[in-house]
């Protein structure tokens, strides 16, 4: 694949291992090799300081415990390093209320699950280019 994204760092928070594997594989298709995957905020929090500069964050919204995707978004946005980083929701919660809430919370993108295999590469490219990407089902 192309080397355009060889240096790109993606942060992924996803509690379902199969979905983590899938997302990593689909990102790999694009040539993105550096995917930092965590299953929860607690895991991520302890490693946050050690992470390299992140180009894109993909957050599952429904996570176990009280630290869901919205919580993580708020935590990350409070960190100067993530103030302008594209952060997209990647979720199976696709009711109009959910979509609206994500928009209001300040996400830069919304990728409904199941991910659209054909459109996924383009969506990631656009997110990395700083565009607003809204792929509700």
């Amino acid at each position: 694949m192309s080397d355009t994204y060889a240096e790109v760092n993606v942060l992924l928070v996803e509690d379902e291992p199969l979905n983590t594997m899938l997302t990593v594989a689909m990102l790999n298709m694009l040539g993105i090799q550096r995917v930092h995957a965590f299953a929860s905020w607690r895991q991520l929090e302890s490693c946050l300081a050690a992470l390299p500069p992140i180009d894109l964050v993909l957050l599952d919204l429904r996570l176990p415990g009280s630290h869901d995707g919205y919580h993580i978004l708020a935590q990350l946005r409070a960190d100067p390093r993530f103030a302008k980083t594209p952060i997209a929701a990647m979720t199976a919660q696709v009711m109009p209320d959910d979509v609206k809430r994500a928009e209001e919370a300040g996400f830069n993108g919304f990728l409904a699950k199941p991910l659209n295999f054909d459109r996924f590469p383009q969506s990631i490219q656009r997110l990395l280019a700083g565009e607003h990407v809204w792929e509700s089902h």
Partner: protein
Amino acid sequence: MLLQQAGEWLIERAGVECVVIYLHESAANRLSKPMCFGAQLAELPETIKLGYSIYGEVAMGRRHYYVETVAREKRLTPIPPETQSAYIVPLLHDNQLLGVLGLYATRPAALSEPARAAIDRVITLISATLATAHRLAESQQTIARFDSFQRLAQDLTARLSSEELLQRIVEAACEILDAQMSILLDVNFESGELRPVAWAGIDQATAQLIRSRLKEDLKGLVAWARLPARTPDIRADQRTSLATQAIVAGMVSELAVPVLYYDELYGILAVETSTYRDFTDEEVDLLQALAAHAGIALRNARLFEQLEQRNSELQKANAALEISRQQAENARAAAVQANRLKTEFINNMSHELRTPLNAVINFTRLVMDGHAGPVTEQQRNYLGYVHDGGQHLLGLINDILDLAKIEAGKMELRREPTPLAPLLKGVMSTLIGLTKDKGIALHREFDDDLPMLNIDGRRIRQVLLNLISNAAKFTVQGSITLRAAQQGEHVIFSVRDTGVGIKPEDLPKVFEEFKQIDNVLQETASGTGLGMPISRRFVQLHGGDMWIESQLGVGTTVSFSLPIN
């Protein structure tokens, strides 16, 4: 006072020893209230009927009667001792009998012819004075009655309760008619009974004894005939001698009138007197005037009763209504709750199915597309089936979700000005492969200059894809035609096929959710049964409508309209 002066004057000037005066009671047609001046006569009868005894004869005949020698007139009793002659004179004025005056003398000279002539002149004067006094008394009585009526009128206009009003009316009846008692009975037509409701001059125990039945005694007859009736002598009257008439001790005369309100009888009003009384027409009129007020009061009381009854019925009905309102409210709350649970369930189901489908669909594509190493042709075919199965499941979930959103009123359209021709061409190019595979022609019948519509293009595309793939499903040979044309304020779209058609009785089921129609192709039609209902809902959300026409064995046309603006 006047008569005493007259009597004393006669004794003094005419030289007679005794003067007797009886007054005429025109109502009773008798003489009564005897007065005696000079020598006292102990056994004067209290009343004398007209025509009886000397006094009665004089009264009746209105002629002077001179008895020169009382010893020869045996009927003249009692007389003072040593009376020689007597002169009995009618008191007349304007041809009206006022009374009878008798003079008794021991000396015959006292009643000689010239003396009698002088006495006659004096008596004419007395009569005239007496008549004037009578008229004065009558006018005073009239004034008194008028006053009583005025007071009553004030009571009637005051906001008294019906009970108080009726009480005032019976009291006024006593007052105005100078009666010792009065009673108001109301009538019950079902039982025919008359029962006391207000009375004056008697106590409650006595009043309760006074009952009547329609037609049965004086009061009952008054009620039945709706005419006044009077009797000067209750005990002598046949109408009142019946068993039902309770006679109150000491009462002599009675006047009873019906209590009416327009033509409706409410009861009777009666007055009774302890002295002999022949009620005059004027008095009948007076009591009827009072009875008319009683009629109004009784009618109001009855209306009030009916109102109260209706009120309580209304309250009962209100209570029943409140119960059913609460039941409806409970049912509504239960429905809201059920709906909320359904929405929650659908959301959860959607989430829980999407997560594994994400893996199924996309891992399959990863392998199919060779991202996990080389794949054989057959492996790719098989993986294609897995992928399509996953996509079908996803379509089902999306349909259910759309329906839930529409039902919850949360389906939001993303309207934007959309050129129609490119949208229709896009739909056709998406489906051309499908129809070609089935050997069906796909025709277009629309111009490039169709108007621009402010619609959610994604949803309308979804509708058209659904209609055409449905048509393809039920068409074995022939063609499918996509048509669109402006018609007034709308653009009408239609998808016409040459398929198997639908039985008329099945047509209404087309837009019902989860309904699939048996088809003559004898093959199980794939699909969720949600496509048509959802398509119609989308069109309706846009302000249009959808309808279907079909002929069995000839084909089906599904059309829908979208408003321009």
